């Protein structure tokens, strides 16, 4: 009897591992009490002002269309990380909502270590390092550009 219960629990546990959204998820999000349009303008300004931040394949890539997703590279001394982030919500939310948010979908270092919340080849420490660098070189400047403090969204 105990063995049967163990087997059922094991099957349920295995199933739970296989049930999932299968999507990129959110490594970390940053919410502001402004419209998406204003946030978008500030994001572009920060990228243009900062020589250490740049975008490749602009407008050609699904993950770098500039409207929904943006992919940037941050270079500073030993750091050469790539981040793909997304504006939360859809056209309807962007038009009507009084707040907006960007969240990191994918992050990779120069060795290709990284990934998304859904799937990645990095340790928790490496993930933290990637997020810390993003905050130090991008989010802090975005806060300054907007003269606002963000609210963190960890997806919990």
């Amino acid at each position, binding site marked *: 009897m105990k063995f049967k219960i163990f087997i059922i629990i094991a099957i349920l546990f295995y199933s*739970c*591992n*296989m*049930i*999932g*959204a*299968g*999507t*990129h*998820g*959110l490594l970390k*999000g940053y919410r502001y009490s402004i419209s998406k349009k204003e946030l978008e303008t500030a994001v572009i300004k920060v990228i243009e002002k900062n020589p250490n931040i740049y975008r490749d394949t602009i407008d050609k*890539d699904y*993950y770098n269309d500039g409207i929904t997703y943006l992919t940037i590279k941050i270079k500073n001394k030993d750091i050469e990380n790539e981040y*793909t982030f*997304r504006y*939360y*919500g*859809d056209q309807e939310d962007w038009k009507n909502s009084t707040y907006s948010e960007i*969240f990191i*979908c*994918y992050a*990779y270092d*120069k*060795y*290709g270590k*990284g*990934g*998304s*919340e*859904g*799937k*990645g*080849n990095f340790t928790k420490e490496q993930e933290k390092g990637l997020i810390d660098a993003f905050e130090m070189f991008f989010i802090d400047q975005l806060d300054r550009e907007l003269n606002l403090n963000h609210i963190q*969204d960890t*997806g919990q």
Partner: protein
Amino acid sequence: MSQMSSFIDGEMKTGGLGTLSDGSELAKGFTITGQKDFYGGNHWVTDQKSYYSFWHSVQGDLTPDALDTRTLNQQWGGWLGKMSYPGGDNPKKYNGKDDYSYKPGNIVEYPGMMHDLKYDKMGITGFKGLATSTKAINADYTFVAQELALSLSPGLSLKQRARAYILGTGLGLVALPKTLNALMPLKALTLLPR
């Protein structure tokens, strides 16, 4: 020049897979083994599995934004037939990003694809997100309704209808506790007469 020199050094080592300036390998290797035939001659046989992996590693370097076809039809370990979207193992590009360019031939997969795109928008992932994120309730029940409608469709085979039913009820059951909690928060329970 130093990059060329370290690359050549790498080539000269056992395995001979040149080391690039960032420490990575130029390409994955594949195995070729010599086999003696009946007459004593030597035949060189390529190991298909390692060659397949090598071919995809080259393809991944050349076209990192292309769909990695190895990630198709990986859902549920094949339990529910060949499916790419409903489940936790979605198709990916060689660079690891999610890829929605593949249009499945199986109609039962479309609600899953739409559901995943909605989850992408909200940054929700994994079983935890599925089971706890109340902001996805609308997307979840759209999926459940679409799959249950397909399970009732007389135009589909019994197998397809069964798959749609399992997917619809499965996700519905997983999403039920968070839905009940959203409709009747625990705080409200304290107001009930004892």
